[in-house]
């Protein structure tokens, strides 16, 4: 379990996830805040269902009842410089 990677963006292992669940962190968002799982380049697309299944099995719920994390923009990384450039362009147009 120590060598089983659940989140390849932030190198979070199955052991870490199971330990946290055992400590009572039974939502994706809580586990995310502690481990950064779901916050890397893939934004939870790889780890999401694995974590949801671990939570579901541990607390005896259905997958459909385990909430996933809140999705927020941007879904891929973007340099701040480019955002500033677009903001300036919009101001000029006004």
């Amino acid at each position, binding site marked *: 379990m120590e060598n089983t990677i659940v989140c390849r963006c932030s190198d979070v292992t199955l052991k870490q996830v199971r330990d946290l669940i055992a400590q009572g962190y039974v939502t994706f968002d809580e586990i995310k805040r502690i481990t950064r799982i779901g916050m890397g380049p893939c*934004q939870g697309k790889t780890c999401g*269902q694995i974590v949801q299944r671990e939570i579901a099995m541990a607390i005896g719920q259905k997958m*459909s009842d385990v909430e996933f994390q809140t999705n927020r*923009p941007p879904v891929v990384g973007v340099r701040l410089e480019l955002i500033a450039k677009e903001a300036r362009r919009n101001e000029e147009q006004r």
Partner: protein
Amino acid sequence: MKTTELLVIGGGPAGLCAALSAAESGASVTVVERNNRLGGQLIKQTHMFFGSREQYASTRGIDIAKILEAELIKYSRQIEVLTDTAVLGLYEDGVVNALYKEEDYFKIKPKAIVAATGAYEKSLAFPNNDLPGIYGAGAVQTLMNVYGVKPGNNVLMVGAGNIGLIVSYQLMQAGVRVAAILDAAPKIGGYLVHASKIARMGVPILCSHTVKEAIGKDCLEKAVICMVDERFSPIPGTEKELEVDVMCISVGLTPLCELLAMRGCEMKYVPQLSGSVPVRNERYETTIENLFVAGDASGIEEASSAMVEGRLAGLCAAAKMGYKPADFDERFKGYAAQLKALRSGPVGEHILRGIEQIVSKEDRHV
């Protein structure tokens, strides 16, 4: 800010068909595609399709992409294509932001959107699953068939669904040895016609088996496999070691709808559709008005049905914006009949049980 009538997110089979269908009704369309070329997964599908005559049965996926691209040229005045462009977010005020390569960040304000964002490969948790040499089966198919890169010499395929079977066959066509194909289920998930072709070539297809562990120093050297019981728990004492340098994970796809979730669409986890999908009406409109969905993003199926769903979503999105052709009802019924035909049989019934759970009959947007 860039404006457009219909924004189609994703230039795969569903997105291209949505764009074509909306343009046929008279709408102006912008297609945004993350990759440098259109076609989505079709461009790596060197096998011939089953499906239906209307949806190019007996034609290779890569040729279907060419047919759709040729059709786009007919509507070149109405359809604008932005490749190398990823949509980053959908906002409450209807603004969409996008990124061209890593060079230009810009905003688009469309009147309606069809999200045809496709799917993502599921992964599997087992010890040393991060060793180089362990890939998604779709990734291997892309490497081989799009970029001409041989992934290795000895492959273990994990998953005997259609993707696992087809990619195994294509690996052998490329001169790669497939050591075995595993599936945790007691039965082969993919079409038997694919499975028997592979079995005839001497590749064992091991049902009720899973991968227990990967072994290797700097990259994959061996895989330990074992049998599982009816609850998918490993049976001790059944372990076997296989010398492989590539492992392909082919345990299914899941709908890619993070943009829809972030915009606030009501989502539902539906096992038959392989993940979390948006609730929608019969016209493919989600619970957010003017935001439509089509293809794998609304539930994992085949490219054939994704194309028909795209045609339907494009037709309905255009109609909503005032481009309602005189033969709207006929076209709608025609596409619906095609979908019904594609969804006959046990796999189709399974999909239909999933769709029942997400299609709301009540109309919130009238």
